[in-house]
Every structure is written in structure tokens, then in C-alpha cells.
């Protein structure tokens, strides 16, 4: 089943242009499933980079505008979209030229996978 899930994630990555990697982690950034192209920046896959999103999304949820669902970070060379699926976090890494709307639209496809991974992570 793990292979099937990885294949699903790989298909998702390949079907969206300029996506370099998709990582499903727990809230501390420990990877559960990971697919990545060769060009993916190694820094963006690190646990201490991904875990900052868990903290940020918790704090952003206190702003009185409801729960924070996703965050888009656009850097000079790359863009990173984090999806709040706590206790899991899904991080999509793409080049700066990728269509951000398409990256955000991956949410529903990712949700289908994440719902099956719920009991893999301790709650």
C-alpha cells in the first residue's frame, strides 16, 4: 500500500508543471511519505523548515479569522505551499514560475491520500 501511495503522490507531482517535490510529514517535520525530483532544494525538505509551519499555522488560527488551512511562501527561486492537515502537514515545493493556483488546487487530491494516513501518526 505504501508503494501505491507513493505512486499516487508521484503522479500528482508529475501532472502539475514545475512541481519539484511533495512531502507528507508529521507536525515536527518527520517525513511519512516523500516524493521529489532531483532539482528539489534540500533545505525545503528539512524537518526544522517544515516544523515552523506547524507553529505558524497554530498562531495564525488565533487571529480571529478561523482556522488557517494553507500558507503560500514565494521565494526568489522557489515557492512552497503548506497544507494544514494536522496532525499531518503536506508541503509542496515548486519553482518560482509554477502556477500557484494549480499548486493550491492540489488540496483535494492530497486530502484523499491524507485521510488514509491518519492512523499512521500518533494523535
Amino acid at each position, binding site marked *: *500500500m505504501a508503494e501505491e501511495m507513493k505512486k*499516487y503522490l508521484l503522479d500528482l507531482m508529475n501532472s*502539475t508543471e514545475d512541481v519539484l517535490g511533495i512531502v507528507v510529514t508529521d507536525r*515536527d517535520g*518527520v517525513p511519512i511519505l516523500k516524493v521529489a525530483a532531483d532539482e528539489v532544494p534540500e533545505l525545503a525538505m528539512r*524537518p526544522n523548515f517544515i516544523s515552523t509551519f506547524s*507553529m505558524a499555522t497554530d498562531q495564525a488560527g488565533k487571529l480571529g479569522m478561523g482556522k488557517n488551512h494553507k500558507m503560500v511562501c514565494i521565494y526568489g527561486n522557489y515557492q512552497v505551499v503548506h497544507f494544514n492537515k494536522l496532525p499531518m502537514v503536506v508541503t509542496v515545493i515548486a519553482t518560482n514560475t509554477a502556477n500557484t493556483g*494549480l499548486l493550491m488546487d492540489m488540496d483535494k487530491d492530497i486530502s484523499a491520500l491524507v485521510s488514509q494516513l491518519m492512523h*499512521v*501518526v500518533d494523535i
Partner: protein
Amino acid sequence: MGCCCSTEQESLSQQDGEVNERTRLIDPVSNVYQTNASSSEYGNHYSSSATKKSDEQTALNRILQQTASNIIDVGALECHTLEQHEYIERVRTYNQRLNMVPPQKIPNRVHPEAQLLCDVPAVERILSAQPILLADFNLMISSTQKVVAALSHIKVDHKEDLVVPFGIP
């Protein structure tokens, strides 16, 4: 200053220790809550009264904790860094559990073909694809026309009554 939004008065009154509607419930500097009331405080009361007080104290503590968790205090956030062995251990656990996930069908991804208007990634790849042969195109057109003509010529030739009474004497 005389501005209506001035906070000068507020700060003055707070400095004097005066309690008003603007006084903060939680002291942002100390950020420490007295969660346990001293037991001697309740020592001379009846047990029911003590229970009631303890319930009130619990409720108060809950409100305080709730308020504290609703406060955005970035400075007080603890940056939890995982130890290397803990990280490796967790990766191993996740891999094991991942292999134990019962095989279920992952729902198919929503195909963009089903939508009339949608974003198409790599549009140049689709547009630069080889067009179909003219002969195939003509075959499709002529076949479709034949099918349409055949459908339009379908007739029902009834030889018996269309309404048949059942069991009516």
C-alpha cells in the same frame, strides 16, 4: 496628549494598580498563573464548601489556560528540535505503520476533462501534439452522420394494441 485614542491615562491608571475594565486579566510580564490555592485557605471550611471552591478554582484555571492558549506570544514559543535518534525512530515507526495500512482504493483524482472550463497545465504540450489524420477525421464525421441519420429514422411499428388491460373483467 489630548487625543481621544491616547493611552496615556490608561498607562497611568495601570501604574497606580487601579483595576478597571481595561486592566488585563493576565499579567503579560510575569505570565505565571497561580494555579494551586494554598490548602490552609480551605482548612476551616466544610468539605462541601471546599469541593465547591475547588470546582470554582478548576473552572477558573480552565478559563485562564484557555485564555493563555488564545494569546499569540511568539517569543514564548518553544522551538522543539528533534534529537537525531528520535527522528530516526519515528521515521522507522511511520514506515512500519505505512506498510500495515490496509489496502484501500485511493479515490481517483478529479479529471479535468470532466470540466468544461479548467486550468490546463503544460498547455503548449497539448497544442503542439500531432493532429489526427484527415482520413480518420473524415471517417469520424461520416460515421457520426450515419448514426444521426439512423437514429432519426427509428420508428415504432406497432402491430398490437398499445394499451393492454390486465385482469379487468
